[in-house]
């Protein structure tokens, strides 16, 4: 009995000691490891702000990859700001914040409108360089534009159409909303290529200001009017997808040809599955890297003035098989 008692208590002692030690060790280790780091960081980094129309869009994502890659190399700090859907007011607010924060450079996906031009002017007054990417605002005081030449894009698609329809015919060009400058440029490009060919008849359909992304309805309307239409051009990504969907609903699409601009996974998928004939792809990562390089040039006063436009080449994508 006495033995048992001593044995039990000794075992208890050992067990409790082990547990105590275990917890003490855990506490000790965690407190030794996690001292709150409050180090002074010399903020000599150039702070670049990227303001995008749509966060999470493939374009922005690809751009970010390029930014971060060159930012690491050049000791710059890039912050990406933006809303989840294209919104001029938000974009203006971010421009304001960037200006008030006296950042070292603004990279922005331009929007049409006098407000934007005004903000760029304000930034320039404060000595902040603004570079537009992907979409341009040529009338503003932006330092340079990095991205595809949209006119050229239009021409590419135009020549593609010409190649495919030797006999000419009706071509419907669709934009879901009110045409932006980019879309206008693309349209212009297409028109320019097909200008010398009277057999080609262009039907241009655009939505209005307050109705965004209604390309599907627009296409349906057009199809009602022109049931014989075989050729479609979506002037933006949304329009491309809308055309494909509208045709699909009518049980058509296999014999029709759809052309689209922009490089989104959805469009690529449609091209791969043959529902869209071809689209244009850009190396967006390269846009990001190039714009960073230009900002750096500006900040270091090298090779000034900067070129007005730095165009990246667009490539016709016709599906994985490369039809």
């Amino acid at each position, binding site marked *: 009995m006495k033995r048992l008692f001593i044995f039990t*208590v*000794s075992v208890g*002692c050992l067990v409790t000691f082990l547990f*105590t030690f275990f*917890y003490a060790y855990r*506490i000790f280790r965690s407190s030794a490891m996690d001292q709150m780091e409050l*180090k002074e960081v010399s903020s000599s980094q150039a702070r670049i702000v990227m303001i995008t129309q749509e966060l999470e869009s493939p374009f922005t994502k690809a751009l970010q990859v390029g930014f971060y890659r060159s930012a690491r190399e050049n000791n710059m*700090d890039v*912050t990406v700001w933006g809303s989840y859907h294209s919104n001029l007011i938000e974009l203006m607010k971010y421009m304001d914040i960037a200006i008030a924060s006296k950042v070292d450079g603004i990279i922005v996906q331009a929007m049409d409108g006098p407000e934007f031009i005004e903000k760029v002017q304000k930034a320039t007054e404060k000595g902040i360089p603004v570079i537009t990417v992907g979409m341009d605002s040529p009338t503003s005081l932006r330092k340079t534009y990095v991205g595809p030449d949209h006119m050229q894009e239009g021409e590419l698609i135009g020549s593609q159409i010409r190649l495919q329809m030797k006999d000419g015919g009706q071509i419907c060009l669709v934009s879901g909303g009110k045409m932006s400058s980019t879309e206008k440029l693309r349209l212009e490009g297409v028109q320019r290529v097909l200008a010398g060919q009277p057999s080609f008849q262009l039907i241009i359909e655009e939505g209005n200001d307050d109705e965004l992304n209604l390309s599907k309805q627009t296409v349906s309307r057009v199809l009602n009017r022109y049931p014989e239409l075989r050729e479609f051009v979506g002037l933006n990504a949304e329009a491309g997808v809308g055309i494909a969907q509208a045709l699909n609903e009518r049980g058509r699409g296999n014999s029709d040809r759809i052309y689209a601009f922009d490089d989104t996974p959805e469009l690529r998928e449609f091209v791969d599955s043959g529902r869209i004939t071809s689209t244009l792809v850009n190396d967006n990562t390269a846009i990001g890297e190039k714009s960073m390089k230009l900002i750096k040039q500006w900040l270091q006063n090298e090779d000034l003035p900067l070129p007005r436009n730095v165009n990246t080449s667009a490539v016709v994508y016709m599906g994985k098989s490369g039809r």
Partner: protein
Amino acid sequence: MNTIRRKIIWLSLCNWVFIAVLWLALNIYNQKTIEAYNTILQRYLFMNQISQLSSNSVTWINRYMDEHQQSQMDAYDSVKQQLEIAESRLGTLTNTSNDSALVNYGNMINSQVTAMDLVVYNVRMGNRESAQEQFDVSTNISKFISEATLSLFSTELRTYNEFYQTMIQRSHDLQKMGFWTLAMASCILILFSYRFASGITRPILALSLAAKKIALGNYEDSIEIKTNDEVSFLARTFNQMRLNIQHSITEIQHNAQLEADLQEHKLRLKENELKSLQSQINPHFLFNTLNILSKKAYLEGAEETSDLISSVSGLLRYNLKRLDKPVKLRDELAVLDEYLTIQKARFMDRVTYLKEIDDLCTNIHVPNLTLQPFVENAFIHAIEPSISGGTITIRVFKHAGDIIVEIIDDGAGMDEESLSAISNGLGVGAKQGHSTGIGIDNVVQRLELFYGVQNVVSIVSSPGQGTCVRLTLPVQKERNS
């Protein structure tokens, strides 16, 4: 000596140290945790304060624009000053993930201050429109600042998320450790107390058991307690006491035995005295009767009978003398003559005496009645069984400073066995048939006691060769008789 007091002090001291260390460690740790919490809290408070200052300054500017009061201007100035101080201290918040955000933040504050100063300037210049424009700018910036504050908060939370989690985990761990420590302390304390208590009580228990044993009269088992405190001292003393008591008891027992023996001896002595008194009555009467018989025989002309009776009477008288007084060998020999006369009358021609006595040797003292038993022995064993009788030779001579008395018979003799039996005092019938009632072994003992030496009597004998009893009496200084 490790006393009980010291033991108690040690136990208490150990306890105290344990508790003190634990308390200190926990306290220090707690202090550290609180400091960490304070740092975190201060960061948030600081950011919040900036946001507050920013909107306050806008409020004051707005009032100033409307009312142009100097007091409002002063209030604005003080808020602006605070804002600028806060801005200069922004660097203390810097960490890896909010570096550029903080710079932006600081710049926004600067922009706001600039815009507000422009408001003041324009108000003073009376340029209301510009003032309003700048005021809108500063209001916007103030909004941005409060948004940026929220964004900083969220960055802060993200950055230190792991740290906070660790802290929470740690506090849980600490709680658990507290419980386990309590359990451990309890266990250790139980164990120590138990050991300590049994360290005191076990020897006391052993001691009380020993005391019980002693109370029951068992003094044999020794008390051994191998601690080194007062109890052991007590045990040693107790053990000593036990030994003393045991010793005393043994002594008492011994004394009692002695007393009992003495008592027995006394009783026996009384009995003997009584017996001797009894036996003395008869011999005196017998002695007187024998004397009368001798005279009567002489008067009636039976001279031989008268002599015989006279011899018996002489022998009897000699026998009645005190046994403890030594006598001269001469007297002893004279008594022997009387005895031989009596025996001669009994055995007639069957017995022959030969006496070769050196008269120079007869002055030695010998114990009473030492020769007669041997001679009588010779008669019993040598003469009586033999039909043709025998010869008894008595020789007294000096040899090598000793006086030798030899009593020789030519009887059947003895074998080795009987001889050794006699010399061991186990002779069969050694005491039987003696007229004087004194046996051989008695004589041998008395002789040895009287002379203080061993081997006074030696017997040489072999079957068919007779027996020679030799008494070797050492010559000694004349003793007082």
